């Protein structure tokens, strides 16, 4: 799975410190292996957003505030958001495990305090992943995203940690010939 260069979609706006229990309440952890089912319940724990997932159009963009995805380590948090049809998450800042999980999944996330401040719900956005620029067609604004370290960009481009580990395992197999 390679990342598109440009992503377009409608913005869904969330506040600060949205934690993983709000992104996907723990009771849905029983669907850990079912992305579509998780997607149906994404953001359900955010007060006033209990039916949010039903309104998402495939490709929409989620814009969060600071410390997005704090709380639990559950990888089903970014999985549920992806399962709901969100193509990309932008936030003022991310909690570290959510950040790791998204990168490891090869799921694009971007850190952009100006976008988190300027974007309003329903704005039409275009995100240039290579340039790290978000264009807001509704408002005519442009926001810059913070650059990630090179290794993380490589992981994202490769499609996450899975292909990276596959490559490592192949190299190890070459180095240690099987003893039969």
């Amino acid at each position, binding site marked *: 799975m390679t990342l598109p260069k440009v992503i377009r979609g409608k913005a869904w706006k969330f506040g600060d*410190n949205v*934690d993983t*229990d*709000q992104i996907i*309440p*723990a*009771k849905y*952890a*029983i*669907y*850990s*292996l079912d992305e579509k089912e998780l997607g149906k319940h994404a953001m359900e*724990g*955010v*007060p006033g957003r*209990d039916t949010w997932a039903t309104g998402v159009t495939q490709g929409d963009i989620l814009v969060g505030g*600071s*410390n997005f995805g*704090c*709380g*639990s*380590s*559950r*990888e*089903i948090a970014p999985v549920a958001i992806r399962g709901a049809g969100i193509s990309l998450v932008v936030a003022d*800042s991310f*909690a*570290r*495990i959510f*950040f*790791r*999980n998204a990168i*490891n*999944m090869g799921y694009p996330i971007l850190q952009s305090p100006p976008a988190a401040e300027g974007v309003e719900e329903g704005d039409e956005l275009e995100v240039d992943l290579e340039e790290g620029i978000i264009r807001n067609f509704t408002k005519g604004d442009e926001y810059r995203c913070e650059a990630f*370290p090179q*290794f*993380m960009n490589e992981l994202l481009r490769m499609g*996450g*940690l*899975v292909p*990276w*580990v*596959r490559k*490592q*395992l192949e190299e*190890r197999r070459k180095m240690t010939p099987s003893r039969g």
Partner: protein
Amino acid sequence: MTVAMTMTEKILARGAGRESVRPGDLVLAQVDFAMGHDLTIPPAGKIMREQMGAEKIWDPDRVAVTQDHFQPAKDAASATLGRLTREFSHDMGIKWYFEVGQGGICHTVLPENGLVLPGELVVGADSHSCTYGALNNFATGIGSTDLACVLALGELWFRVPETLKFVYHNRLKEWVEAKDLILYVIGQIGVDGARSKAMEHTGEALKHIDMEARLTMTNMAIEAGAKNGIMEFDEVTKEYLDGRAKRPYTPVTSDRDAEYEKVFEFDVEKVELGVAKPMSPDNYAPLSEVAGTRLDQVFIGSCTNSRITDLRRAAAVLENHKVAPGVRLIITPSSHQVAIQAEKEGLIRTFLAAGAAWTTATCGACLGGHMGVLGEGEICLSTTNRNFPGRMGHPKAQVYLSNPAVAAASAVTGVITHPSEVLDHMPAGIR
């Protein structure tokens, strides 16, 4: 010339096979011990075998698996997760597999079995894996793809965190526990106050805080957004590990001239008994501000505050008292060993006589799993770690976080209560 480093930096440098590291460096480091449980092993196992193409794990002796979150299975889907966890552990020959009824909550089970040791680099597929840092190691929570990578390779990528130093002076006052201190600290810095950073706890106040209470403090590092919480190795650490440690270990110390992003100093004698009010762990308030708040449920449990010393304090308060009408008290020991010890000491008898529900060791109600899930509009006082909306059940339920003595006293009166209103003094030696 050697570069001065913090404990966290030294452990990551050693794991990465480097002389030194600096905050912001991305390193590929060897892991000394890894943990997963019934919610995180099934996806990790699937990713490792089906997507990464690994057939076996890097070292079956260095992995622990617990059946704790939704186990004993709360429904048929959880039973499937439990089965997948059991089968994976068996297929991979995982040495430290803890079956239902024999382990308990991962973050109690690993320390009590001497599996996470000073100087080590530990990862767990659970956010509260930062708990282990009280034992002078680098321990952090990871996701399931991360865990799959560690299981396959024994290595993982890390960004070396900046370190925040927390220096605690003086001694905690009577009734004030490590839980109150860490709630106060999180209240001061906020739920993102240490985001992605290391929290290094130090100072003479810690000398008087026992290992179980120290584990309560490092447990909540994630509630300030931290990558890890870590403490120095001292007599308390050594005593706890003697006869328990499963491997030889090498403690680590921060260099005197190590660089800290920020240093916070606290006079702990000034810290009051307190709570975190709904709906965030940083919503600290002194107990006096919320005393009298009506309660529907009191929960004593979780990896934060349900070890044997916590249960002793709760029992001391509950002795010869009854749970107030209209309130339910649920007590969940954090491990099977804790339950055995509680039985030996007669604590369970005290709990049952008081009218408390005593459960098997599980994460249970803490994450709104089972055995104490809250309904709409209910108010709970809980010894757990998180009170974000919906954490323990309905998004409109309200959760206050406190220490176990406050929880026990509040169960007796039915409202948030200072324990001195139920018990004159905590008996010597119980603290």
